[in-house]
């Protein structure tokens, strides 16, 4: 629309421009023609005027020449001959001798009175040549050129002047214009416009007074006529164009320099401009033809361009239609366009019948036919809600249709868009067939459920495996330790020691296998807590002391001081990473070798994380380059014999790498076979406030545990015995509950303060540890909420730990129990007065 307006405006501007140009050209041509014509006419009439002036000038010259001759010559015949010759030269009408009183004698012998009015005085008294109009009855008006002479006598007539006369009509000859084929009118007029010499063309008619003619016949304004008369009086030359009887005339005027005559020419403009008009006409025709031609070409080009555009548009529309048809046929979307006011269907894609089994015709007939095939009852009608859709917005529904041909149920995602097309509100419905997607999703859901079941099975298996292996391992290790304390026989002790050592190895193997499995299954989570970063390295050093027992390895540490030690970190995982690396270093370093443990910190930004770098270098056996590439692979161990020399699962570095990755850190290894290895671990750690960090637990050995009263809920007798023996060795009073129900019962039946702490096995018959804990916490007694309950279970995974906390417990100890952990748990939770 806008484009059309612009095009129309351009066309209007073009037309106006052409008209304006044409008008300007016409004005220019008219002005030029006027100027040229006036110039041309002025020149022609100037020449006529010059002829008149020449005539006058010649007459004066000759008169002045004749006078002396006549004064000297007395012979009449000579005078007659002389004058006759002069007449032939000058073609005057008459020659006269003039007496003092104005009487004349012509050469023909005629006498009379030549009325020169006041000029007689000038001629006779002032002795000055004069020219005057005069008239004799029944004769044409004459022009008299008179010069004074000495007093003389001719044929007895006394004279004092001589004169020649011209009929005014003879003067016409001087003003005759040969141009314009006799159609030019020439007048000698007086300043008041009266015509003295009339050389009018036949077509002009009688002109007696030019000014009167202009006033009466042309309607020329009084001001213009007055201006013209003033020009006449002032002797100015000029020109003008006037209309008379519907025809244009040029009037040019020029003072005659004779009497007070003005030579005036009037010629019809058509005659003057005959050639110019023809030229103008031809020019205008040519220009018009060219203009029309250009306009036709322009219009044709515009039409062709429009046609081409329409063609292209049609082609594009055809292609679009074809594409849309093909798409409609081949895609699983049904498009329907409905008029918003009438709900009349204006478009239905051809594939409607294929997709929902309804014909196009039936939908064109009534769009409600679409609603009739919806599967199910109480389904919201799209057509009911369609009016709530605002223009430019859309609504979506998932609906199930019954295919009217096959009877199968098909799922469609229905989108209704409200829009405006050609100022009319329309609803465009897109029924997208999602039946296949729906089927795939169903299968995926089923697969997911199966996978979830498998995973749960695996988890369950791992948990069971962990629990079930750890439980006997707890007994083996526990009793081995007990036995070792009881047996003094060196060989037996040696055997027990080997059993203990193998058990621990076995436990490590089990832990590693379980860990890697858990990591892979995503069970292991990175759980940062506020810590003092320095305690981790201290803790690791303590652990290292244990590793280095009975070894002569130089353990060198270099700990930098962090600017801010309080960070969010998973201290357990970091410790495991460092212990893994340091453990390997100890394992692969011969006695006499050196292990370096350096800790450094850096801050890239004040408000950014702090980076801690742990560097562990040893002078051990080192690794080949080939192995380095696989060091973090699972079950990778260099050289077969290594396994026999250095026992391990080959999972340690893989677990380490996973933990580092889990914490967003990096681990690098540099190693030279036979020289040693360098592990560098860098971890980013968010800073935290100091008060968020729990104080470091004091040394457990320094805390007396005597008299601590513990309720031990443990269904397994062996585990109960192991725990009881080892705790009682530390002076702890142990009361056993055989299951969860018993544990709740004993707590409830004893007054507050009976127990300082409860160790709660999880997997117990009748009532597991979680339920028992929740029940205790729900009891209406003061210590129900405060009594520390520590899980003591073979469920050693992190989620198990979390489950313990979630059940309301205060801590978690994994089986086989480590008394150190038991003691730490007691110390953390029981207010012990030292």
């Amino acid at each position, binding site marked *: 629309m806008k484009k059309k307006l612009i095009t129309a405006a351009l066309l209007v501007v073009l037309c106006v421009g052409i008209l304006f140009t044409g008008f300007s050209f016409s004005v220019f041509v008219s002005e030029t023609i006027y100027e040229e014509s006036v110039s041309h006419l002025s020149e022609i009439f100037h020449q006529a005027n010059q002829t008149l002036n020449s005539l006058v000038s010649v007459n004066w010259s000759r008169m002045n020449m004749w006078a002396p001759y006549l004064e000297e010559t007395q012979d009449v015949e000579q005078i007659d001959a002389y004058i006759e010759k002069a007449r032939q030269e000058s073609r005057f009408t008459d020659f006269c001798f003039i007496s003092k009183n104005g009487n004349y004698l012509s050469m023909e012998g005629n006498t009379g009175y030549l009325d020169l009015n006041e000029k007689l005085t000038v001629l006779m008294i002032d002795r000055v040549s004069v020219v005057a109009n005069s008239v004799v009855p029944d004769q044409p008006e004459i022009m008299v050129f008179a010069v004074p002479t000495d007093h003389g006598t001719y044929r007895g007539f006394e004279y004092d002047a001589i004169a020649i006369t011209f009929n005014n009509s003879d003067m016409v000859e001087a003003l005759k214009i040969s141009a314009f084929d006799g159609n030019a009118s020439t007048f000698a007029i007086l300043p*008041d416009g009266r015509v003295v010499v009339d050389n009018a063309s036949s077509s002009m008619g009688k002109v007696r007074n030019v000014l009167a003619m202009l006033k009466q016949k042309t309607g020329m304004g009084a001001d213009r006529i007055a201006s013209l008369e003033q020009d006449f009086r002032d002797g100015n030359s000029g020109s003008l164009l006037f209309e008379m009887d519907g025809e244009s005339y040029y009037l040019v005027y020029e003072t005659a320099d004779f009497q007070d005559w003005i030579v005036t020419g009037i010629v019809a403009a058509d005659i003057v401009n005959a050639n110019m008009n023809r030229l103008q006409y031809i020019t205008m025709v040519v220009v018009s033809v060219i203009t029309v031609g250009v306009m036709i070409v322009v219009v044709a080009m515009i039409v062709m361009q429009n046609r081409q555009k329409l063609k292209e548009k049609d082609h594009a529309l055809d292609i679009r239609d074809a594409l849309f048809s093909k798409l409609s046929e081949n895609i699983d979307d049904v498009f329907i366009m409905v008029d918003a006011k009438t709900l009349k269907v204006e478009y239905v894609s051809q594939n409607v019948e294929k997709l929902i089994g309804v014909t196009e015709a039936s939908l064109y007939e009534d769009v409600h036919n679409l609603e009739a095939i919806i599967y199910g009852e109480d389904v919201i009608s799209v057509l009911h809600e369609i009016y709530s859709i605002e223009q430019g917005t859309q609504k979506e529904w998932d609906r199930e249709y019954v295919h009217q041909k096959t009877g199968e149920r098909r799922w469609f995602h229905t989108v209704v868009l409200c829009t405006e097309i050609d100022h009319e509100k329309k609803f465009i419905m897109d029924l997208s067939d999602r039946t296949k997607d729906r089927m795939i999703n169903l299968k995926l859901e089923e697969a997911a459920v199966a996978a979830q079941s498998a995973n749960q099975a695996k988890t369950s298996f791992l948990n069971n495996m962990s629990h079930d292996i750890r439980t006997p391992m707890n007994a083996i290790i526990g009793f081995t330790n007990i036995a070792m304390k009881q047996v003094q026989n060196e060989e037996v002790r040696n055997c027990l020691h080997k059993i203990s050592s193998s058990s621990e190895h076995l436990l490590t193997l089990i832990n590693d296998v379980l860990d890697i499995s858990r990591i892979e299954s995503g069970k292991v989570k990175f759980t940062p807590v506020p810590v003092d970063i320095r305690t981790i390295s201290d803790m690791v050093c303590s652990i290292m002391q244990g590793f280095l027992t009975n070894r002569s390895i130089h353990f060198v540490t270099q700990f930098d001081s962090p600017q801010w030690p309080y960070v969010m970190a998973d201290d357990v995982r970091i410790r495991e990473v460092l212990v893994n690396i340091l453990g390997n270093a100890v394992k692969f370093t011969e006695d006499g070798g050196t292990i370096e443990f350096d800790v450094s910190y850096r801050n890239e930004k004040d408000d950014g994380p702090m980076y801690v770098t742990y560097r562990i270098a040893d002078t051990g056996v080192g690794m080949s380059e080939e192995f380095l590439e696989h060091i973090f692979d699972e079950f990778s161990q260099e050289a077969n014999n290594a396994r026999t020399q250095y026992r391990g699962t080959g999972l340690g570095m893989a677990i380490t790498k996973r933990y580092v990755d889990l914490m967003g850190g990096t681990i690098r290894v540099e190693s030279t076979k036979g020289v040693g290895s360098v592990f560098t671990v860098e971890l980013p750690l968010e800073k935290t406030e100091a008060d968020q960090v729990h104080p470091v637990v004091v040394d457990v050995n320094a805390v007396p545990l005597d008299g601590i009263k513990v309720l031990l809920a443990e269904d397994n007798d062996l585990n109960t015995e192991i725990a009881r023996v080892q705790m009682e060795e530390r002076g702890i009073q142990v009361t056993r509950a055989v299951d969860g129900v018993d544990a709740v019962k004993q707590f409830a039946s004893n007054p507050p303060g009976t127990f300082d702490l409860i160790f709660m096995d999880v997997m117990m018959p009748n009532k597991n540890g979680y339920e028992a804990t929740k029940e205790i916490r729900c009891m209406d007694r003061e210590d129900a909420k405060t009594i520390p309950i520590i899980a003591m279970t073979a469920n050693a995974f992190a989620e198990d730990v979390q489950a313990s906390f979630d059940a309301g417990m205060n801590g978690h100890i994994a089986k086989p129990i480590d008394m150190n952990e038991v003691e730490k748990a007691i110390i953390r939770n029981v207010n012990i007065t030292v």
Partner: protein
Amino acid sequence: MKKMMKLLLTGLMAVTLFSGCAGTTDHDGKVSISMYMYDRSMFKELTPWLEEKFPDIDFTFVQSFNTMEYYKDLIGRGEEMPDVITCRRFSLNDAASLSEYLMDLSRTEVAGTFYSSYLENNREESGAIRWLPMCAEVDSIVANKKLFDQYNIALPTNYSEFKATIDAFEDLGIKGFDTDWYYDYTCLETMQGSAIPELMSLEGTSWRRAYESETEDNQVGLDDVVWPVVFEKYEQFLKDVRYEKGSEDQTFSVTTPPFLNGETAMIRNTASFADSVTAENENVEAVMLPYFGETSEDNWVLTYPMCQLAVSAKVAEDPAKEKAINEVLMAIFSDEGQKHVAAGTSVLSYNKEVKITPSNSLAYIQDCIASNHLYQRLASTEIFGISQDVAHKMMTGKYDAKQAYEEFNRQITQYVDPETKEILFTQKTAYSNDFGEHGSKAASSLMNTLRQFENDDIAIGYASVASSSIYEGEYTLQQVKWVMTFRNAIYRGEYTGEEVRRIMEWLVNIKEDGSNPIHHYNQMPVTSGLD
């Protein structure tokens, strides 16, 4: 019973009061043009022709006077200048004070029809031309050629022959030359006619231009070269024509019958008169003779435009009227129009487009005409008056030529018309001269006054007998004269009722030849004393 009836007034009346009533008429829908004709002769052919030619123009023709003083008095009375005026006695001097009321016609088409050399005589210093001359009237010596032939006396060709001819007729008991010496124009023309060569000499024409260019502050007296000769020659002329003392009161009616009866051989009159009397009298063949000079080459014919025409300046304010008047003027000065004006008696036209065939009466002055010996009388108002006064005193012997010259010279620089000196009465009631359905109030008043003045029973006249309205205020003799139209006379007599009836029928009924005596509503009769 016979009643004394006054049929128009002639001469003068020292009327003390005008009384009466009349009606006026408005004529709408046409361009109205008021034209004042100096003489009733113009009503004979010109006005009917104009009315017929311009049916869309509502003409009001008024018979006025031959002098410009009449128009000056109209203006003086507060009247507007009529649209078109005519005047026989003309001089640029007399016309000067009317210039502001008259249109400059120099740029009109009609002015372009004139020989420029003639029209130049009427050009003012400003360049304006306000007066256009009608064709020329020949006013010279009229001879009854039949009488000459009867007595075998040749028509004279020069002054000596003229004198001899007079003597010859006197010897036969026939008056050689006589004329109506009473009139000022006769005095003027015979005086100037006796010395035309002198007046047309270089000195004479130079003086005339000076005189006609005089201003109120610069009065020009007679020159001392030409004019003494003029009076000498006039004195001789009176002697040579055997002027008889006491003849200075002779009027037209006194001198004409003897001429027609063959008792007088020559009189002064116009060519139209000559043609008229020739046509009406078997014993008369009146021919025009010139004023004679010593030789035939010194003979001159005295002429003057039959009248001069001017247009009111106010006409220019009404384009429609101006256009109409331009058309009327073109008609008047056309060949046909001038013939209606001249009625076939003129000698020449001043107009290029008019060819007038001379009447037979002009046959003996053709030489003068051909040689352009046509003297245009010097005709200012004062010249008329002074000429009459001085000539009469020369006729009575009171002045000789020298005294006449001196008296003329004295008067010409301080002339006052005696008829304008004395206030005769004061008119208390005004009567309009507008012609309406019931005639002219002024004309009715005039009729009543005339009837009462002579104590007659009935007065009958034309409505146009009143040439102007009757105004409130003072009246001089001259002004009284202007109330009744120029050259109208009163005829008194006793008539029976039947005769009165026939007179009235003659005045209003269409004649057998189809002519209508009432060309215009102002020609309807106006009466007093008729019940």
